[in-house]
């Protein structure tokens, strides 16, 4: 038994029993988590490991920077497009290319559409079943469910007892046929589930409604980007021409397409206002006492900001999504963030399966190195290809440890919302105050697993409103006669300087995303992506600071260690997407689907 106090304030105790959860994520896989629990089933040590290596940085070396977006957006098929946008911004920064206003509006609409769709799918399809019990929904009274629905969302027309009875009948038929389909693999008898059957039925009904609706939202990206997932992008603008008359230009955006997008935006706003937010508040109301999982959210938060109001101005004052850093829990001071400053963002590898010339020093991404070095600590249990227990004193993850001025940071919707709140951002403050008042909880309740989930919902609502704003801006601009969507004056490589570097950033649904690249003689010399899950899923650094996932798991009580729904709840609240962060190391790709209780 060893007890350690980390510089970022956590008492780690590696005694007690060790629980291994592998894999953790519901869609993109490749994350493993190990915790030590004491005799009261409380987590006293947490270890988060990315079990796969990404390596796209290596693939990009020597390629044409104008093509980089098409490679990097394959990092992930879920937060699709956001890596591409980050990439074209990095190349434009390096080559000093400005884009037309219309391109900025269209890019923002696409990015905001991603936020809305991703947050919605996360809440209903990836995270809801950590809180909602579909089997319990079979016990619901449909009249009581209807009353609950009308109470929490009076304007939602789909609220009759008959409607809920129909859905319940479908679920019952389904379960009775012996298949649970998407509801397989849950811990449906675990006492951690607290909703009454009526709330469960309402939420499962909306699970299905959201499934139906998310396909419509995506049409916005397919109209502007040609396809989805992985829409098309362009260095210098967007690859879609505008022709409002709709004649003579096959494939151009015409008035009919613009009207369709406009109507989809209205539908998104309605769905979020009438279904998502009321559900969020109703579910959170039943779990008010479950305030675990805050981790670094009360102390160390980072956001790069995004959604430039005017084109080509990436300064904090022009970004509608807030930028800043909070450290040491001091919300009265939001620090400025500069992605170019070598002192601010650095990646460390003493606990990551990579090699630097000096492992103890951090490297700014422009000087970043991606050299795999797989080596296990001598306290590892198991074999190199079948690890039973990691040794967190040595290298233990394929994720590097990024730090902001030496601090482990949380990124994502909650980070953006707390930073916006601390900065006095009017819209964000209003939204947060509404939630705190409705639930009758103090502001500190934000620093929790549920706070993270709530911030995501509020951000979806904010993003849908901003889609409307940029759509109106786009249409106004088009009506004024500005049809430009791309600037190709610097398309030819002979217009470029021979050795330049650039950085592009976005706020992806999961958090701060940056791409740093160096271009030499029109080819990529170096390319480094520091992605949201690198921040959140980071392992320990040279000083011993634990990362955001690890911190969030600390001191949580696990009711039934063999059914660690509490661990999944907290990790899922970050919407982890480990394909971002890390390549298959197991030669046969066998799934390790076991929980080992020691």
């Amino acid at each position, binding site marked *: 038994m060893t007890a350690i106090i980390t510089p970022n304030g956590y008492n780690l105790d590696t005694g007690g029993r060790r629980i291994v*959860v592998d*894999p*953790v*994520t*519901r*869609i*993109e*896989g*490749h994350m493993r988590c190990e915790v030590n629990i004491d005799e009261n089933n409380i987590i006293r040590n947490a270890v988060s490991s990315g079990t796969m*290596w990404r*390596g796209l940085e290596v693939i990009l070396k020597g390629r044409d920077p104008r093509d980089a977006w098409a490679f990097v957006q394959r990092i992930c*098929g*879920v937060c699709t497009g956001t890596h591409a946008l980050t990439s074209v911004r990095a190349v434009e920064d390096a080559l000093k290319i400005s884009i037309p206003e219309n391109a900025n509006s269209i890019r923002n609409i696409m990015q905001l559409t991603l936020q809305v769709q991703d947050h919605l799918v996360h809440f209903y*399809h*990836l995270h809801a079943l950590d809180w909602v019990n579909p089997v319990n929904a079979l016990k619901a009274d449909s009249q009581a469910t209807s009353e609950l629905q009308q109470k929490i969302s009076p304007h939602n027309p789909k609220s009759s007892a008959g409607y809920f009875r*129909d859905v319940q009948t*479908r*679920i019952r038929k*389904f379960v009775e046929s012996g*298949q649970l*389909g*998407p509801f*397989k*693999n849950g811990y449906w008898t675990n006492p951690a589930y607290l909703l009454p059957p009526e709330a469960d039925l309402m939420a499962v009904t909306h699970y*299905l409604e959201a*499934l*139906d609706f998310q*396909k419509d939202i995506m049409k916005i990206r397919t109209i502007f980007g040609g396809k989805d997932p992985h829409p098309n992008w362009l260095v210098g603008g967007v690859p879609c021409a505008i022709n409002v008359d709709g004649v003579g230009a096959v494939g151009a955006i015409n008035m009919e397409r613009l009207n369709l997008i406009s109507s989809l935006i209205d539908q998104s706003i309605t769905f979020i206002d009438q279904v998502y937010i009321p559900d969020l508040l109703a579910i959170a109301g039943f779990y008010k006492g479950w305030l675990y999982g805050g981790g670094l959210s009360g102390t160390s938060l980072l956001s790069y900001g995004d959604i430039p109001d005017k084109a080509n101005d990436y300064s904090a004052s022009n970004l509608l999504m807030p930028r800043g850093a909070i450290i040491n829990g001091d919300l009265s001071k939001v620090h400025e963030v500069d992605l170019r400053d070598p002192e601010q963002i650095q990646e460390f590898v003493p606990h990551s399966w990579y090699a630097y010339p000096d492992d103890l020093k951090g490297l700014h991404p422009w000087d970043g190195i991606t050299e*795999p*070095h*797989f*080596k296990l600590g001598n306290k590892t249990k*198991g*074999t*190199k*290809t*079948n690890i*039973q227990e990691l040794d967190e004193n040595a290298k233990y993850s394929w994720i590097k440890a990024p730090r902001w001025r030496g601090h482990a940071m949380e990124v994502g919707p909650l980070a953006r919302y707390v930073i916006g709140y601390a900065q006095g951002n009017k819209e964000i403050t209003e939204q947060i105050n509404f939630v705190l008042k409705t639930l009758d909880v103090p502001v500190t309740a934000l620093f929790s697993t549920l706070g993270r989930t709530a911030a995501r919902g509020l951000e979806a609502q904010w993003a849908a409103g901003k889609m409307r704003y940029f759509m109106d801006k786009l249409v106004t601009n088009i009506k004024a006669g500005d049809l430009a969507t791309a600037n190709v004056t610097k398309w030819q490589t002979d217009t470029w300087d021979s050795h330049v570097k650039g950085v592009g950033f976005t706020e992806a649904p999961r958090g701060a995303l940056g791409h740093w690249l160096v271009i030499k003689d029109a080819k990529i010399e170096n390319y480094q992506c520091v992605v949201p899950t690198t921040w959140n899923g980071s392992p320990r650094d040279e000083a011993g600071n634990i990362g955001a996932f690890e911190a969030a798991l600390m001191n949580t009580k696990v009711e039934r260690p*063999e*059914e*660690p729904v509490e661990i*999944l709840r907290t990790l899922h609240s970050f919407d982890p997407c480990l*394909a971002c962060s890390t*390549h*298959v*190391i*197991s*030669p*046969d*790709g*066998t*799934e*390790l*689907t*076991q*929980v*080992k*209780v020691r």
Partner: protein
Amino acid sequence: MIKPNVLLLGIGNLLWADEGFGVRVVEQLLKSYVFPENVTVMDGGTQGIYLVEHVQQADILIVFDAIDFGFPAGSLHQIHDDDVPNFLGAKKMSLHQTGFQEVLAMAQLLGEYPKQLLLIGVQPVELEDFGGSLRPVVKAQIKPAMTLALNYLQTFGIEPLEIADMVTLADPMLDIARYENERPSETVACRLGDERVIFAPDIKITPPQTLDGAVAVPVDFRGKY
């Protein structure tokens, strides 16, 4: 009479040898026939929940897939209607692939489901060959699978027009001949993973074992949502 919506859907992952069977059948159908307007021929790849809406819209659905159900390797099978979900989802090759079983389940829960459903499946010989193509016995079942589908369509009075000269309607990047001819040799490409990692001096590859004394609890939600 309103014509039924028909969907011919090939699913699977081209990159994992016989797992690409369904997609290859669809490629050949697209090259060889012109179908009436109410028939859609689709390469569903590994798209998961993105396919739900297409399944919902179909009155008649024919699915082509590799089905790992312990039949003799390379044998071809037809499964009808309610039996179909039980034969799907035996193996998920892509980590983010929603099993087609779940796609059908979601369509059913959403309340719209094909009236007629036919699964034409082949028992694969080899799946664990990244970048590989169909094995000969599986490849030989493409034509018979097409014939089964056409015979089934005929019972609904649907007959496509055969194209005399094969045209490429599918994405040329995915063409089976090109895919096979341009595959790098074993000496050039490491088939197991990243060679810098797995050929590192302190790694010895042994197949993963079941943990001793492990409590088996289903926590793997991959592909389920």
